[in-house]
């Protein structure tokens, strides 16, 4: 019984992660082996692809792309939190916007982002934000706003109003309550929203493609450059290596989120 269960689990895990597995395996194959051996077993494992990507930065600089992604994703998740935490606090405590604004903002996620692309391109051109990390970060902030707002609203709703009132009686201003009471109490939710936003921003492709050209290219766009690195056919091995490297940061953060998620659940159980 147990064996069967693990068998099913194993098959499902392999099936779902097949593209990832293939990418990972391909990254360890030489160009010659890729052409001859499409199988899952690597005959002569090599780090050559990784070495090439990490050392030959003359044409495409993976370090620059990783740095751009890090900065833009950080801005995109940090700024989103900075904006949504006070907004969520106001929504929960005053009730303003709870009925109409919140559903609208939440549904912004359903609108295809490409709708915003052309007007944004023109606006960015006008204010000189094209191909800047800050510009990309600002866009990613907007991408992150809806989910971040929802998460903050949910977390703050769990704090009994009497706690705020006690703080008000203790002479705390709204800002002090936010910084010293609400913020610390919902810290697990804040960390989760930050990591979630960071991953979303890291994996964003469309705006990176549209709004950057040289200076601020993020890793998602940058890794596509490697597909045809030497002009001729697609260099699968090198492309795979770039993709594996580019997927590492969000994968690591994804593991962190899991621990935070369980943390926030227990934190909610001991309130009051």
């Amino acid at each position: 019984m147990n064996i069967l269960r693990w068998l099913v689990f194993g098959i499902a895990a392999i099936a779902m992660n097949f593209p990832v597995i293939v990418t990972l395996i391909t990254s360890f194959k030489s160009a010659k082996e890729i052409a001859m051996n499409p199988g899952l077993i690597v005959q002569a494992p090599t780090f050559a692809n990784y070495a090439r990507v990490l050392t030959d930065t003359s044409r495409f600089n993976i370090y620059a792309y990783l740095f751009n992604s890090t900065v833009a994703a950080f801005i995109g998740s940090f700024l989103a939190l900075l904006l949504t935490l006070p907004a969520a606090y106001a929504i929960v405590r005053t009730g303003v916007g709870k009925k109409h604004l919140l559903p609208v903002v939440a549904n912004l996620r359903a609108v295809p982002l490409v709708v915003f692309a052309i007007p944004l391109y023109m606006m960015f051109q006008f204010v000189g934000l094209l191909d800047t990390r800050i510009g990309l970060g600002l866009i990613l902030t907007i991408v992150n706003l809806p989910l971040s707002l929802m998460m903050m609203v949910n977390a703050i709703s769990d704090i009994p109003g009497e706690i705020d009132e006690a703080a008000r009686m203790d002479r705390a201003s709204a800002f002090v309550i936010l910084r010293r009471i609400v913020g610390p109490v919902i810290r697990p939710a804040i960390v989760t929203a930050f990591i979630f936003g960071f991953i979303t921003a890291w994996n964003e492709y469309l705006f990176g493609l549209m709004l950057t050209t040289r200076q601020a290219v993020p890793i998602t766009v940058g890794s596509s450059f490697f597909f045809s690195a030497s002009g001729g056919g697609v260099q699968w091995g090198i492309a795979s290596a770039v993709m594996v490297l580019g997927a590492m940061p969000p994968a690591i953060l994804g593991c962190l989120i899991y621990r935070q998620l369980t943390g926030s659940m227990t934190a909610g159980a001991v309130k009051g």
Partner: protein
Amino acid sequence: MAQIKLDGTSKVFGDITVIPPLDLEIGKGEFVVFVGPSGSGKSTLLRLIAGLEQVSGGRIYIEGRDITTTPCGDRGLAMVFQSYALYPHMTVRQNMAFPLEMAGEAKASINRSIEETAHVLDITRFLDRRPAQLSGGQRQRVAIGRAIVRNPTAFLFDEPLSNLDAALRSSTRLEIMKLHQQLGATMIYVTHDQVEAMTMADRIVVLNHGKIEQVGTPQELYERPANLFVAEFIGAPRMNRIEGEAAAALGAGTIGVRPEHIRIVQESGLWQATVEVIENLGAESHVHTRSDVAGPLVVRMSGSPGVKIGDRIGLSPADGFVHRFDRHGMALR
């Protein structure tokens, strides 16, 4: 001089008048209890005084100063909430330090105040614990401690005992009364429990639908209720309410007699009745009877009852303890 004075104070939520304009004066060092059924506006009235709600009309004075529009933190009042409202991420010490930090006190003086207060409330052992690691009763002490350290003009309590079990409730009740004597501070205490009101209050304010039905000492409310509502709300078991012929015979629309003021007399007596249920509490008994003219009547007597279910008995109200009310429920004197 009144320390806290409400002058035509009212509160409207939307188009519902929760508190019609009312006047009230509370003296320095007084223990005043707001009592009334759930939804009668006790919390709202307390929150108006606290400044957690803005008045819709009228004014509020504290020590002669008009504080109607003063923010809640600047009124010099401390509040203890029903849910304790402790800051869950802070230790007991940090919880108690918070109001003092907000007031800009120096670290050394904050620590001294906390140690003193913790000693008085016997919570020194818990100072470095978080609220989640404390029992309900301990949390309530900490909440009271957080109020005391501020050395407020007056304390406001909103049903502070209703989350505690019965045994803890009566011991904490005693502690709050002791605290009141020690500190000599003004306290306003909200409860729906008339026993709490009777045992704790210097003066009771009975609220019903946001209206003050009567203000007086527990003794006054018990002996001379201004109307039927107060008469029935104060005292347990409830005052017997007699209408119709039996009331008209005494020149009233309604008469009320407390269960402890009816005596069982064999056969004769004002009212003839049949015994229906007997509750024997050991020290006292409640005899539930049905009278031919006066309807259901409860008799409270000390010790065990000398009657059994089905007995025909006569009942007599004690002289001078019959409360008479007119058709609108107002006391006739």
